[in-house]
């Protein structure tokens, strides 16, 4: 096995870790607009630019819609583009997110996950990125600042893979991760630069009959994302679905390649199974909650409860096989949603995990816990009660309340 490289221990909040990763990833263009709790990313990156530490073109735009438009344009010319946003900012990008994925530009974006208005709330939940679930972006969710750093670096490799060519968003929980100082091991600049490499291009046949790199170039003109009506639109959408399928392999490859140099990996890159081998009861969650959940699981194990956790690191593409096999022997599953799908009979992660388990050989009980909306804290005691309820379901042999609200009054 290749020896991992010597790394520098730094005290970084999640946002700073993201900015540092972007700095090291040889990014050509950053177009961004500040919004809490993502602000530090853009602020920090603009300092790198002002101090001459990067050669990046920094574009101060007038809105997030423009930030995404500029990132798409930059990426379409062949540049490596990065941006960051949160909450209402991501919502304002909505239209352009589909343009990014439809134009197959490998933009990487950090999303410091935050609740959506109204009422106004600046704290962390997943309402913003879950609302962009179907925008054609790959979605990764980080558990801690270290993973946010690692995931940004990995995302350029995933997005720019010629079998993928899709934009990637990396979610880090607002404040819990974005503003909390952690010890982060950072790779040396040259190691990151070599790992992300120089962007490669697919080749396409243009209207002039020339086979050229897939990028906007005045010497080899081409039109990206023009009109495609009843006769072709559907075919382009099918291509995007194929790219998502390809991403399942690429996320895993990049995760294991990265492990060789850094010594860090996150499950198989798609999901992280924690003490699931012989678990009877398990929770499924995303993001920073999994850190607390692992401690809760350890406590339950000490008390003789066969508890486990499945962390969904990659939400898009949905790792169907990985989830199904990780939960194959679990008898009762609690799916946790830091987001609501109003009138949808449960949250978005619940819908998808239950959908995956429908095809399981031994279908477990599956319940939903909506929690942490607007940044509400979930204590270890509350999280432990989820497992206790799952044990109750196993004892009773039935589910009484399939959808529950954790830590809600009344």
């Amino acid at each position, binding site marked *: 096995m290749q020896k991992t490289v010597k790394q520098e221990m730094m005290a970084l909040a999640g946002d700073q870790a993201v900015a540092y990763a972007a700095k090291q990833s040889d990014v050509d263009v950053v177009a961004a607009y500040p919004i809490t709790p993502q602000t530090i990313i853009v602020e920090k990156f603009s300092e790198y630019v002002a101090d001459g530490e990067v050669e990046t073109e920094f574009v101060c735009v007038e809105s997030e819609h423009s930030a995404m438009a500029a990132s798409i344009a930059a990426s379409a010319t062949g540049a490596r583009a990065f941006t960051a946003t949160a909450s209402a900012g991501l919502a304002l990008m909505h239209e352009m997110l589909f343009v990014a994925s*439809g*134009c*197959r530009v490998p933009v990487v974006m950090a999303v410091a996950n935050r609740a959506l208005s109204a009422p106004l709330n600046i704290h962390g939940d997943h309402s913003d990125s879950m609302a962009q679930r179907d925008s054609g972006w790959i979605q990764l969710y980080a558990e801690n600042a270290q993973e946010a750093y690692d995931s940004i670096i990995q995302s350029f490799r995933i997005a720019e893979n010629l079998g993928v*060519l899709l934009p990637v968003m990396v979610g880090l929980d607002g404040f819990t991760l974005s503003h909390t100082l952690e010890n982060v091991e950072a790779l040396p600049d040259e190691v990151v630069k070599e790992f992300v490499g120089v962007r490669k291009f*697919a080749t*396409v*046949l*243009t*209207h*002039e009959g020339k086979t050229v790199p*897939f990028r906007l170039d005045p010497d080899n003109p*081409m*039109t*990206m*994302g*023009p*009109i*495609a009506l*009843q*006769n*072709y639109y*559907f*075919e*382009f959408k*099918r*291509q995007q679905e*194929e790219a998502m399928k390809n991403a399942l392999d690429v996320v895993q490859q990049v995760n294991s390649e990265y492990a060789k140099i850094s010594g860090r990996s996150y499950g198989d890159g798609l999901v992280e199974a924690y003490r699931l081998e012989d678990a009877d009861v398990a929770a499924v969650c995303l993001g920073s909650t999994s850190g607390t959940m692992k401690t809760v699981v350890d406590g339950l194990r000490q008390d003789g409860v066969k508890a486990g956790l499945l962390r969904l690191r990659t939400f898009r593409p949905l790792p169907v096989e990985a989830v199904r096999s990780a939960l194959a022997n679990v008898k009762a599953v609690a799916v946790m949603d830091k987001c609501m799908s109003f009138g949808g009979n449960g949250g978005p992660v619940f819908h998808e995990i239950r959908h995956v388990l429908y095809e399981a050989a031994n279908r477990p009980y599956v319940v939903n816990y909506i929690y942490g909306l607007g940044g509400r804290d979930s204590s270890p005691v509350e999280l432990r009660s989820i497992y206790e309820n799952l044990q109750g379901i196993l004892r009773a042999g039935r589910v009484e309340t399939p959808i529950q609200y954790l830590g809600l009054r009344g």
Partner: protein
Amino acid sequence: MTKQDKNWKEIAPAGVCSKSSITFLTGDWKTYTPVRDPAKCTRCLLCVLYCPDGAIHWRPEKGDIEFDYNFCKGCGICANQCPTSAITMKLEQE
């Protein structure tokens, strides 16, 4: 759908055009046609700059402008901008 339409595995990504738009004569769309009075026209070229379709060309060899009716959609921006009202929009059949 015609037989020559390609399947999703055969086409370039992102809708990259396989054909030039030169053969797609969008001038067919127009209802009104810009007609210029050369006597009133001062060759200020504002219409050339404003035309959203690039369908008005400056021909230096002639010292004059030329409308490309194959691509003029008849939007009327040229007539609206013309400071000497040298351009009028006429119904196609007139």
